[in-house]
């Protein structure tokens, strides 16, 4: 096992280097044989990374504690599912997962139907350079197949916080998002190297980018859900540096997904798009640097190694390389790009949306890095914390929601302000009506009301867009409503998929705003039979019991719950004591309905008859998860259909080209 694992890792390095050389020779000598051989190298990389990954899964699953990694992150009593997910619990396994995904993605790209595209040797070289980096770091610093000096009787076990279904999905989806961004980055750079200033690279990578964004969305949402269930502080997003690290590329890729439409349709924003995809890719490396280096304090427990230095060096190299390529082609890009023609147009509204998204990314970046910046200049590490992020991000995200309500109403061409204002009337009325209803219902908090009204306006715009689209189609085709709705969305999957994503964001916004503004909390010590009241809930503490579950000691509080005086069952918050872990883990008990979560944590206890419970009522948190699912459905819908956008800018300039 040791032998094969190490052969696979060192072969990974050798093959990546060979692949780079073969591509270089193939390009230089215009030799098909060398280029084919480089493709063979890509296939070999996929092969060796698969072998090493399956091997790691095997030694984890069979508890082979002679391997340091297995002994560090698993133990005998760990359920098999968590033994296997320990694959990405530590640095070495995470690097291998990254290398594996990247190798598979590279093989998928290189053996796609675009395999004869002139950009492909460059694309595969850039991707293989990334693979080389990961295999090298594994060999030099974090080898998952390193042996222990003395075989321990049992392993250290997995951090209890990682023993959650979130562990199965959250890291993998995030990695798939991170790794996926390497593909459009590689195509963008390849296009620049070849001086291909058209939007072909964007069209070829549209699905890759969307897929990466889908995984980043999923990763962030699942991460929030996991934190909500596992950390026991009642929230889902704490602006932790590592959370921010995954949010940053999500913001820039969101901007990119919008601005590429302008390039495809109107031949604009070429430099901007290239910069965005380079930035997004660099941010994925930056995120990993933050997670692995431990330079910032985080709830994520990976940051205890010198891996960060490797990432910093590689990130700096890729950044300089990209900058060099962009700068040497800058005049060419500029020459070939069209300027924005009108201030009131779809493209300028998209540009504004991009600026807001990039401003949001900058604000998050600044807040995340501020402790380091302050330490550099003042010698003291100052954490800005959640208040900074809430204060700065709230208006930015509000602006974004408003813009999401406005943009769909602007026509792609010949936008007329009177028509736009007329179309905005109903959504606007919906927003105002929401504000009035909330005020009338006695809801407090002006900022939250503004946010909810803006969300309602945005939601109204999208409902109206669907309704108008169906109406327009019916007028033209005389189809019935259902058929018209079906055909409308299926024939414009990219547009309506995007609208579904926006609706998902509206649903999430309701959850985020409401849970921030209107959640309530009580921390109280109770004797047996005593109750706590919170909102319309009453909780009565019945008993505290100790039991064994999966070899771990569990302390369970039995609490009866009443809603508006009616018994709605029991809730059982727990503390689990793991043999292999010094700290007990908190298992939150949650009762959910459509409008609120009752969130109960067993904080502490003096004896069997006296416990301290933390109880929260979090309004509309379930809407966040629902909104996430809607976003995923919308993205999948947009992914499933739709070729490049219809081009329309050239009608006044003759018919030579499109979307360059």
């Amino acid at each position, binding site marked *: *096992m040791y*032998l*094969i694992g190490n*052969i*696979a890792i060192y072969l990974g390095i050798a*093959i990546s280097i*060979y692949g780079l050389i*073969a591509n270089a020779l*193939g390009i230089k000598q215009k*030799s*098909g*044989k060398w*280029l*084919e*051989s480089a493709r*063979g*190298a890509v*296939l*070999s990389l996929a*092969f*060796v990374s698969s072998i090493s990954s399956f091997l790691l899964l095997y030694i984890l699953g069979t508890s082979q504690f002679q391997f340091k990694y297995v002994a560090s992150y698993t133990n005998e009593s760990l359920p098999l599912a968590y033994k296997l997910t320990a694959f990405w619990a530590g640095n070495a396994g995470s690097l291998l997962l990254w290398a594996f995904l990247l190798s598979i993605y590279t093989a998928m790209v290189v053996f796609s139907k675009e395999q*004869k*595209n*002139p950009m*492909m*040797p460059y694309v595969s070289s850039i991707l293989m350079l990334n693979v080389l980096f990961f295999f090298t770091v594994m060999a030099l610093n974090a080898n998952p197949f390193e042996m222990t000096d003395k075989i321990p009787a049992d392993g250290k076990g997995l951090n209890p916080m990682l023993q959650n279904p979130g562990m199965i999905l959250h890291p993998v989806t995030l990695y798939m998002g991170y790794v996926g961004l390497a593909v459009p980055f590689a195509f963008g750079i390849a296009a620049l190297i070849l001086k291909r200033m*058209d*939007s*072909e690279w964007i069209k070829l990578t549209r699905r890759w980018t969307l897929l990466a964004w889908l995984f980043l969305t999923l990763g962030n949402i699942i991460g929030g859900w996991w934190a909500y269930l596992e950390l026991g502080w009642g929230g889902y997003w704490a602006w932790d540096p590592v959370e921010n690290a995954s949010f940053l590329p999500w913001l820039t890729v969101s901007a990119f997904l919008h601005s590429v439409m302008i390039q495809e349709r109107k031949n604009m924003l070429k430099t901007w798009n290239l910069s965005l995809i380079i930035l997004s890719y660099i941010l994925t490396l930056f995120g990993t640097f933050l997670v692995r280096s431990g330079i910032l304090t985080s709830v994520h427990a990976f940051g205890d190694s010198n891996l960060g230095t490797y990432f910093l060096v590689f990130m700096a190299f890729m950044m300089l390389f990209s900058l060099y390529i962009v700068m040497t082609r800058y005049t060419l890009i500029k020459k070939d790009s069209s300027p924005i023609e009108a201030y009131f147009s779809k493209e300028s509204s998209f540009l504004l949306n991009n600026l807001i998204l990039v401003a949001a990314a900058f604000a998050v970046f600044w807040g995340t890095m501020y402790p380091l910046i302050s330490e550099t200049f003042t010698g003291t590490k100052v954490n800005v914390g959640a208040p900074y992020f809430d204060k700065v991000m709230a208006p930015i995200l509000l602006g974004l929601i408003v813009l999401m309500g406005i943009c769909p*109403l602007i*026509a*792609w*061409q*010949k*936008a*007329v302000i009177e*028509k736009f204002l007329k*179309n905005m009337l109903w959504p606007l009325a919906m927003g105002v009506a929401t504000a009035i209803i909330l005020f009338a219902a006695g809801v407090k908090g002006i900022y939250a009301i503004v946010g909810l009204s803006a969300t309602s306006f945005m939601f109204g715009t999208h409902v109206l*867009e669907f309704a*108008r*689209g169906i*109406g*327009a*189609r019916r*007028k*033209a*085709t005389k189809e019935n409503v259902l058929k018209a709705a079906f*055909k409308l969305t299926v024939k414009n999957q990219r547009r309506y998929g995007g609208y579904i994503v926006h609706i998902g964001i509206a649903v999430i916004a309701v959850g985020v705003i409401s849970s921030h503004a209107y959640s309530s909390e009580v921390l109280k010590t109770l004797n047996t039979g005593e109750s706590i009241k919170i909102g319309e809930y009453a909780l009565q503490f019945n008993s505290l019991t100790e039991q064994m579950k999966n070899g771990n000691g569990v302390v369970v509080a039995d609490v009866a719950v009443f809603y508006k005086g009616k018994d709605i069952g029991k809730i059982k918050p727990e503390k689990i004591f793991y043999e292999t872990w010094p700290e007990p883990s908190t298992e939150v008990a949650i009762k959910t309905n459509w409008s609120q979560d009752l969130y109960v944590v067993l904080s502490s206890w003096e004896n069997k008859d006296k416990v301290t419970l933390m109880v929260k009522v979090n309004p509309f948190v379930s809407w966040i998860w629902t909104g996430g699912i809607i976003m995923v459905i919308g993205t999948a819908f947009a992914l499933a259909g739709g070729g*490049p956008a*219809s*081009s*329309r800018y*050239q*009608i006044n300039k003759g*018919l*030579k*080209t*499109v*979307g*360059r």
Partner: protein
Amino acid sequence: MDYVFLIAGSLVILTCFYFIVSPFFTAGDEHAAGVMQDEEKLSLDQVYGAVNELEMDFLMKKITAEDFEKLKEQYQLLAAELLKNETKAQKAGGSKKLADDAEAEILRELRKLRKQKG
């Protein structure tokens, strides 16, 4: 047992070696990269897609009737020119009758496309 791993390790190396070396014995030495295209050509489908979207924008009251008519006409001219070029290329050196046939075909194609796409 060690032999098994040794053999397995050797097999991994040999497989990779095969993937890398086999092209030198099988593939021809022509440049594997495809032909670089100078420009992306506008297709009739794309123009029709644009007209369709334009029509939707009009029916959804996002653009004025005047702008709609003007833009639609421009797109139709573009489509006609595209078809004409296509037909010309196919029947290079053809007579006037062929050109007239092309015109008639353009109109037919446009009508057919419009019907198909609803």
